[in-house]
């Protein structure tokens, strides 16, 4: 079963790099631990919710920061939510950008906020990409007759 071994190795490497590069933290492990035969899709479901939440919030943030009179309380509320969701799944780098973002909201610093918005969008798209790759590898592994995690 060469294919299975190969896929397992790919999956392990990809997962390891995600942690190594700080995209994910221990919280993601916690999610994986909560997945079992009776809840086989738990991680995918939760991460999908994170994707939905984030996309909605990023849109709201862009809109809010475009306004003539920016409502910083509203912006802060959105960032707070984004920080919460990202921390709940262990998306460490996204969570990390939210901290200076909230500080800029407090200072009502529009440039700082816009910069953070760009950064958080960037981090989000990176982690989204990598998580989608992770899930694809898992699917391929299952299809090839293998199983995971082999932690």
């Amino acid at each position: 079963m060469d294919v299975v071994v190969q896929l397992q190795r790919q999956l392990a490497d990809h997962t390891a790099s995600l942690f190594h590069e700080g995209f994910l933290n221990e919280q993601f492990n916690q999610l994986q631990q909560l997945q079992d035969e009776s809840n086989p899709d738990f991680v995918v479901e939760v991460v999908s919710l994170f994707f939905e939440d984030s996309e909605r919030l990023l849109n709201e943030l862009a809109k809010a920061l475009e306004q003539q009179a920016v409502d910083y309380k509203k912006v802060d509320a959105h960032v707070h939510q984004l920080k919460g969701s990202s921390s709940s799944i262990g998306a460490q780098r996204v969570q990390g950008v939210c901290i200076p973002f909230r500080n800029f909201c407090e200072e009502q610093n529009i440039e700082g906020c816009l910069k953070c918005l760009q950064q958080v969008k960037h981090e989000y798209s990176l982690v989204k990409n990598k998580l989608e790759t992770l899930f694809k590898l898992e699917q391929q592994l299952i299809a090839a007759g293998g199983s995971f995690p082999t932690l």
Partner: protein
Amino acid sequence: MGMAAEAQYHVLAVDDSLLDRKLIERLLKTSSYHVTAVDSGSKALEFLGLLEDEHNDVLAPSVSLNDHHQDVDVNLIITDYCMPGMTGYDLLRKIKESKSLKDIPVVIMSSENIPSRINRCLEEGAEEFFLKPVQLSDVNKLKPHLLKGRDKESEPSINKRKGMEECHSHDKTRTKYDGLEVV
């Protein structure tokens, strides 16, 4: 057989975030709790059989609350702090002010480590304060509170502060308050 089959405890989870609701539900179910999850404080009170006037002011005495006999058996309530409308703190207060519900242990969750917030909740009668993201090790701490049940005498609240704190306000206490912040 001396010990009867372990009773399944019923936990009511309150959180406006769908993601966090899903997470807490899974954490609790993994620990063999029966879970009901709702997305707001008012839905929680509705579920608990405590109907209220929509404009019930936190500052007003709770005489307008309709203390129905509890139809549902809830052994513990775990609620997020920051929620639109009724905060977790407001919910905690209403529960502690209710004759029928005050003995139900309440746990608060929050993503923010604000000492004054934590103290306020504990003083109001919360059993525990969990920092989010909540983990299995936190859920494991719930058991003793559930077992204590009605034996626990609720201590009189020392400083009953009004729950006027907004969740998304520029909380000055957040910056370098006690050095306890772990953002």
